[in-house]
C-alpha cells in the first residue's frame, strides 16, 4: 500500500519528495480510508448478525427500513446519536468519559497490520501478529476503567468478568498462534499469508505443489487444532455467546455498558463489532490464507510489484479485487459462524469459562506447540540441525510423516485432555455437593 502511494506521489507531483513526507501522506491517506471503512463494516455486521440470527430462530429480522432492511443500522445510528448522554452523579466523570475511548482506540490500531489483499497492507510490520495481540489486550484497560467509573455494581461485575475473560483467553489464543509462527518462522502477517499458497499442502512445505492459493494451515493437524482453539478463544475475546458473560443481559443488565447511553454506548458497540470483525479477519488470515485463493497468486505474479516492475497495472487491480473478495468472503463466513454459535449455545457460567480456558484450551495449545515443533523439524530441518535421517526423504514423504505424527499426537492429546477435563468437572460437582451437604447439616 505504502509503495503504491509512494509511486503515485512520485508520478503525480514529481520526484524529490523527502521520504518522511511521502510516508506521512501515505499513512494519512491509508488511515483516512480505514476510518471510512471501519464504521461501515460495523454497520453491516450488526445488520448481518440480526438477519442471520433471526433466520436461525425462524424469524425474519429487520426488513422494514430500506430494501430488506439494509438501512436499519443507519436508523439505529441516528437513534444512538440523538439519545441523551447520561453520566451518573456518583460516577467518576473523567474516567467514565475516557473509558469508551480506550476501548475503541485499540481496535482501530489493529487495522494497521491487517492485509486486505495482495500488496494491500497498511503497514507490514515484521512483528505484526504480536502487535495485533498486544494492542488488543489494551482494550481490557478501557473496560475496567469504564466499569469501575460507572459506580454501579453491575458495571463493575461486568468489567471484572470481561477483563478476567480477556486475560485468560489471550493465552490460548497466543499459544495457538505460536504454533503457526513456529511453522512459518515469521511474525509478519503478510508472510503468514504468502506461506499458505499451494493446494492442500503448502508449497512452502513441499516445493513444487501447484499454487491454487489453497495451502491453508487449517489443512494440517497443527493448524486445525490451533484453529479450533483460536476460534474458541476469539469468541471469548470478542465476548460472543457462549462467552458473553461480561454483558450477560439476564444477569447483570449490560455489564460494563450499564451506565452508558447515547454515543458512548455506541462506541462500545462499535468497538465490539469491529473487534469481532478483526478476530474473524485474523482467523481467516492465519488459518484460511487470507486473500489466498485460486487465481490470486497467478494474477499478482503479472502485476507491478517491486519484484516485477515490468508488470501490468491491470493485474494489480484484478488481483486486488479478487484477493479482497476472497478475504472478505472468508471473514464474513467466520462472522456467520460466530452468529451460528450464538444461535446454538447457551451462555457459560464464569467458573465453567475459566475451567475451560485454563484446564482444557491451554494444555491443548501447549501440546500443539510441541506438535508444531515436530512438524518444523520433520519438514524443514536437515543434517545441519541434527536430523540426518530425514535428509534423504522426498519432501512429500517428509510432509506425510509429519502429518501422521502430528495428527496422532494431537488426537491423543485431545481425547486425553477432554477426558481429564470432564473428570475434573465431575469431581468439582462432587465437591460442591459436599459443601452443600456440610452447610445443610450444620443447621
Amino acid at each position, binding site marked *: 500500500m505504502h509503495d503504491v502511494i509512494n509511486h503515485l506521489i512520485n508520478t503525480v507531483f514529481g520526484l524529490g519528495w523527502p521520504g518522511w513526507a511521502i510516508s506521512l501522506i501515505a499513512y494519512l491517506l491509508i488511515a483516512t480510508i480505514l476510518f471510512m471503512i471501519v464504521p461501515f463494516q460495523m454497520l453491516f455486521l450488526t445488520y448481518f448478525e440480526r438477519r442471520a440470527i433471526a433466520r436461525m430462530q425462524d424469524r425474519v429480522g429487520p426488513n422494514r427500513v430500506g430494501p430488506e432492511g439494509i438501512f436499519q443500522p443507519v436508523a439505529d445510528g441516528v437513534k444512538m446519536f440523538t439519545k441523551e448522554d447520561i453520566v451518573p452523579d456518583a460516577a467518576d466523570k473523567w*474516567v467514565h468519559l475516557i473509558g469508551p475511548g480506550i476501548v475503541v482506540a485499540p481496535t482501530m490500531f489493529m487495522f494497521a497490520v491487517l492485509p486486505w489483499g495482495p500488496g494491500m*497492507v497498511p503497514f507490514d510490520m515484521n*512483528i505484526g501478529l504480536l502487535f495485533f495481540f498486544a494492542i488488543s489486550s489494551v482494550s*481490557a484497560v478501557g473496560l475496567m476503567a469504564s466499569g469501575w467509573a460507572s459506580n454501579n455494581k453491575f458495571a463493575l461485575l461486568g468489567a471484572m468478568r470481561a477483563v478476567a475473560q480477556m486475560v485468560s483467553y489471550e493465552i490460548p489464543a497466543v499459544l495457538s498462534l505460536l504454533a503457526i509462527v513456529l511453522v512459518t518462522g515469521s511474525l*509478519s502477517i*503478510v508472510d503468514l499469508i504468502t506461506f499458505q499458497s499451494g493446494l492442500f499442502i503448502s508449497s*512452502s512445505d513441499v516445493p513444487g505443489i501447484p499454487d491454487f492459493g489453497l495451502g491453508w494451515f487449517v489443512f494440517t493437524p497443527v493448524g486445525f487444532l490451533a484453529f479450533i482453539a483460536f476460534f474458541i478463544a476469539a469468541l471469548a475475546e470478542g465476548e460472543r455467546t457462549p462467552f458473553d458473560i461480561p454483558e450477560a443481559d439476564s444477569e447483570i443488565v449490560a455489564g460494563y455498558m450499564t451506565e452508558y447511553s447515547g454515543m458512548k454506548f455506541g462506541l462500545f458497540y462499535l468497538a465490539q463489532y469491529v473487534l469481532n470483525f478483526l478476530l474473524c479477519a485474523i482467523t481467516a488470515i492465519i488459518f484460511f490464507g487470507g486473500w489466498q485463493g485460486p487465481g490470486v497468486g497467478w494474477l499478482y505474479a503479472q502485476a507491478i510489484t517491486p519484484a516485477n516492475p515490468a508488470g501490468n497495472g491491470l493485474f494489480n487491480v484484478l488481483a486486488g479485487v479478487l484477493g479482497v473478495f476472497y478475504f472478505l468472503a472468508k471473514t464474513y463466513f467466520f462472522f456467520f459462524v460466530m452468529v451460528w454459535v450464538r444461535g446454538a449455545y447457551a451462555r457459560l457460567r464464569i467458573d465453567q469459562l475459566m475451567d475451560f480456558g485454563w484446564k482444557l484450551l491451554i494444555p491443548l495449545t501447549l501440546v500443539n506447540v510441541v506438535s508444531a515443533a515436530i512438524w518444523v523439524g520433520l519438514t524443514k530441518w536437515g543434517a545441519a540441525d541434527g536430523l540426518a535421517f530425514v535428509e534423504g526423504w522426498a519432501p512429500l514423504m517428509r510432509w506425510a510423516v509429519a502429518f501422521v505424527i502430528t495428527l496422532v499426537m494431537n488426537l491423543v492429546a485431545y481425547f486425553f485432555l477432554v477426558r481429564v477435563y470432564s473428570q475434573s468437572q465431575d469431581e468439582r460437582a462432587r465437591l460442591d455437593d459436599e459443601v452443600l451437604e456440610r452447610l445443610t447439616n450444620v*443447621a
Partner: protein
Amino acid sequence: MRSDRVGVLRLPYHYAPTTGGELMDLLIQIIFGLISALVIGAAMMVVTMRNVIHSALWLIASFFGVAALYLLMEAEFIAVVQVLVYVGAISILILFAIMLTRSNEGDRLFTTYWWTSGLIALGLFGAVLVPTLAGTIWNLPQPTGPAGAPEVLSGVEELGRGFVSEFVLHFEIAGVLLTVALIGAIVIAFEERSRRRRVLTLAEELELRKRQQASEHSAVAAADSVD
C-alpha cells in the same frame, strides 16, 4: 521464509530517514519532549493521586509513554512486548488487586516519614544521577559508511537466536522463574475450594431451610415426648 513471489515493499525494520534534515531532527526532539513529559507527568500522578484506581490508570499512561520511547529508539519488539506485558497484563493485575481489596487508606496518603523518602529521591536525582549522567563521556560509536545509510540493528530474529544460543541458560532460568511465580502466586492466594464461602442458589437455600425446619420440628417433638 519470505518468498519474493508476492512482493510487498517491506519497510526496513529500522527505517532511518533517508533525507534526514534539520526539520526531521526537530520533529524527533519535539516528539521526545512530549513523550518524556507524558512519562514523567504520569509517573508523578501515579505517586500523588489519592485514588488508587486513578494511580493505576496513570501508571498505564506512563507504560504507554515508555513504549513510545522504545519505539522512538527503534526497539519495536520491546515496545510491543511492553504493551503486551505491562499494559495488557501487569496493569490489569494491579487493577484486579485493587478491585479485590477495599482500600481504606484513611486521611493520609503517605507514610509518616514520607518527606525523608522524598528527600532521598530528590537527592538521588539532583545530586547523584544528573551530574553523573551529564559528566560521563559515553563512547558513542562514530557513524560509519555513507551518511543516511541505515545502521545495522539487531531485530527480533537475532533476539530469538540469542535466546536459544547465547542466552539459553538465562532464558531457561527466566522460564523457571515464571513458572515458580505462577505456582507461588496460586499457592499464596489460593483458598481451598471446600473452605470457601459460597453463595447458595435458590434451590439450595430452600433445601437448607427445609432441613432447618425439619430439625426444629424433631427437637420440638423430642421435647414433647420428654414431657
